[in-house]
């Protein structure tokens, strides 16, 4: 038989097989999901009902076709359902929706305080395991019902979730992603902390039907259970110590003058230096803060090097006070290591750590904390002398 011809026919057969495989594929499209068959979830809230069921609420984007000549805008609404687990609740939720829930664009998770006090591990697992959601979701705790938070219609953003995400990205409050929180849960020498969010009461100058959000408090966790909430000042202190503070302002009234001076923090850096001397465990907190002066309501002349030096000193004291105050509450009263002191000890003294591993919470309360704070004031802004004061009243 002619080899060439035979090959040709074989070739044709192969083409036939290939084509039939292609046709088989064409009948596929197993995972195809048109974008307009999706209910895009922006944020999810988890609450626990009195019966112990999970109450899942989601904020969903509804794409609105705009009127002629007008750009269609996005609107959101909240839908919720209950179930034994989060997934259980999801399937009930799905039954209420004509479109498939899509979690891939989610940005925030809000947990109610009740839920947080019960333990969050089981519910968070869904968001870490499910292939659509990602670990960069911001997590919040709220004293209210998550639904109410989602129902807030902020002035500046389209949705609650967007507002929360933007707030977190500014780092005006704490900024904790699922990953950060899970990492803290997994770690031996650190406890988790989550920001708390609340709706703001009505105020003059706001539109009636719109409410805004604020998140400047925090919830402290022991393992996966919430223990206590702390107020704004302590939260700021925690943020200082966790080196998460950014764009903070500090106002102080200098000793040698009258009035206040406000500074804007450009950069800050906080490091822990652990030390074990005999039986005492010590932490040296090294903080460095670089600031600019934004407002000078005192009569201090900031051209003077001495004045700036003095301000730097006072700023350092102020920061130290803030941190001490925070430690008093968190370390002494609550005994929750949310700063990662344990982790730093573990890194430097792995053997010693082994001994206290299981009683770290008690040991934590005994750790002595020293401070070494360096502050630099770079520039006095655009005017050096206090504005609007006659020459004679300026303190040199």
């Amino acid at each position, binding site marked *: *038989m*002619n080899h060439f*011809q*035979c090959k040709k*026919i074989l070739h044709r057969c192969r083409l036939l097989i290939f084509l039939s495989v292609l046709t088989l*594929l*064409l009948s*596929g*499209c197993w*995972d*195809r*999901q*048109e*974008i*307009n068959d*999706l209910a*895009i979830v*922006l944020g999810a809230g988890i609450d626990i009902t009195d019966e112990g069921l999970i109450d899942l609420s989601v904020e969903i*984007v509804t*794409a*609105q*076709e*705009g009127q002629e000549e007008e750009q*269609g*805008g*996005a609107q959101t609404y909240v839908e919720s359902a209950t179930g034994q687990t989060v997934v259980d609740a999801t399937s009930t939720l799905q039954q209420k929706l004509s479109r498939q829930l*899509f979690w*891939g*664009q989610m*940005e925030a998770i809000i947990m109610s305080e009740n839920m947080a006090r019960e333990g969050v591990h089981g519910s968070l697992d869904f968001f870490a395991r499910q292939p*659509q959601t*990602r670990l960069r979701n911001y997590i919040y705790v709220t004293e209210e019902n998550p639904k109410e938070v989602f129902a807030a219609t902020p002035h500046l953003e389209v949705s609650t979730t967007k507002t929360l995400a933007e707030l977190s990205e500014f780092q005006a409050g704490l900024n904790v992603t699922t990953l950060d929180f899970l990492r803290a849960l997994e770690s031996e020498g650190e406890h988790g902390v989550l920001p708390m969010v609340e709706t703001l009461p009505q105020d003059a100058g706001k539109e009636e039907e719109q409410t805004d959000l604020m998140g400047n408090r925090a919830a402290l966790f022991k393992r996966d259970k919430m223990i206590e909430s702390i107020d704004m000042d302590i939260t700021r202190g925690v943020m200082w110590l966790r080196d998460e503070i950014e764009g903070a302002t500090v106002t102080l009234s200098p000793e040698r003058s009258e009035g206040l001076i406000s500074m804007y923090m450009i950069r800050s850096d906080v490091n822990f230096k652990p030390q074990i001397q005999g039986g005492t465990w010590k932490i040296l907190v090294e903080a460095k803060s670089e600031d600019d002066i934004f407002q000078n309501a005192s009569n201090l002349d900031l051209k003077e090097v001495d004045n700036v030096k003095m301000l730097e000193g006072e700023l350092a004291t102020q920061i130290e006070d803030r941190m001490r105050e925070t430690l008093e509450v968190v370390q002494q009263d609550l005994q929750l290591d949310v700063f990662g002191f344990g982790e730093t000890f573990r890194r430097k003294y792995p053997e010693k750590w082994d001994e206290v591993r299981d009683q770290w919470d008690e040991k934590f309360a005994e750790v002595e904390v020293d401070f070494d704070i360096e502050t630099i004031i770079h520039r006095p802004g655009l005017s050096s002398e206090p504005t609007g004061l006659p020459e004679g009243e300026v303190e040199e």
Partner: protein
Amino acid sequence: MIRRFTQKMKKSNQNFKEETVKALNEKEEQPKELSIDLKQNEEVIHAIYDNSFDIVIRPFSASDGTKGLMIYIDGLCNTEEINENVLTPLMKDAELTTNNIDTIIEQHLTISEATKVHTFNELIEEVSSGHPIILFDGNATGCSLSVEQFEMRSVDEPEAEQVVRGPRDGFIEPLIVNTALLRLRIKSPRLKIKTMKIGIQSRTNVAIAYIEEVADSTLIEEAENRLKRIEVDAVLESGNIEEMIEDHPYSPFPQILNTERTDVASSYLLEGHVVILVDGSPMALVAPTTFYSLMQSAEDYYQRFLISTTIRWLRYLFLVIALTLPSLYVAALTYHHEMVPTALMISIATGREQIPFPAMVEAFLMEVIFEVLREAGLRLPKQIGPAVSIVGGLIIGEAAVTAGIVSAPMVIVVAVTGVSSFAIPRYNAGISIRMLRFPLLFLAGMLGLLGIMVGLIGIIVHLSSIRSFGVPYLAPMAPANFSDMKDVMMRVPKWAQNTRPRLTGESNKNRQSPQQKPSPERGGES
């Protein structure tokens, strides 16, 4: 059974081949010598050219009284010159003897080129090339006169490969002009141009040009052999030749570069490639070629090298966009919803709310419409072309979006893809890329990004497996040759292009003296 079938197929194939060749050659099967008797010759010629009104067979008497016959094709020769420099001396010169053609050519015919013909085959060929033949009674040798003159367009700017900076002359149809244009650029006698005739009916002149000692001798041999194998009845365009000599006929990619530009052809000659010119076609073929040379434009070498390099990279980007953008869009919309940033996703979803088609069908529809518009605009007379683009592009696009049949982002995607494909400088490469979009689109619709990836891998495997005249198509990237990448990853300045590409110019590596980088210290003042 298969065996019998194949045998039968083969037999019939062979029979068919023999028969056609025979039929085609039939008239020339009797390569008769010219006879001494003019009358007899005249009869044969009449028989060959019966029913051909453009053939002029003009009898005349030479000045010594012998009968003469002149045969030519009206419109192919310069009749004035025939009158003045051929007929006048033949009929008026006193000492003319017709029994020796050589003396006639030497002493009487005042034209530059004249050759002797002995057979009818030669006669026919000369006549059809526009050379009049004169025959004399009592002489079995004719004389062919090179006084051809026919209508042709002037050498003008190549339409398909325009440049802002660079020479404006392009090849035109007659082979003789094209070879002259090549000679004008490369004056070295090492530029060799061989010709052969291809096509049993058309007898088309095909020329192979190369530079001796630069082009690999095996390459020249291979090119000649491939050309010699061709047995067709006619060659009307170099595209006919291209299809007969390429390595992988089923591949969607052009494996032989075609160009209208004389400077491009010359530059390839200088890199050791072979250029094939076909009479009657303004398109020169360059072999071998690689994928990356399809991405290069002549102007790259005339503009500043940094700019050319940037533009080359832009082209690679546009190549990827032209190939994958619609499929990526479909994949993102139907499989990978998280790929799109939230805000964009919401606005796309808003736009798609009323669209009746799934994304893949929508993309397919729009792509097909785009191809149709392109084709229609291309073929229509120049006056109507723009109207089609306006009606098609603006009106249909706008109306379709307003009516909610297609979504606006899809129109943008299709438009961007179309424009990107036009950024590929070679028209035929652009078409291949555009056509490959469709299978990718289907794969994207079936398996999302995985499908696109599988498709791309398939394309690249195919590209790596094909060769053009022995040169791997993806050279010099794969197999990698770092010194040759100087003309792919970037366009190095002229003073750094010291060596020829390895795969074609290996036999004569250095093309210029090294270290010619200009600098102020080397300036002329001293």
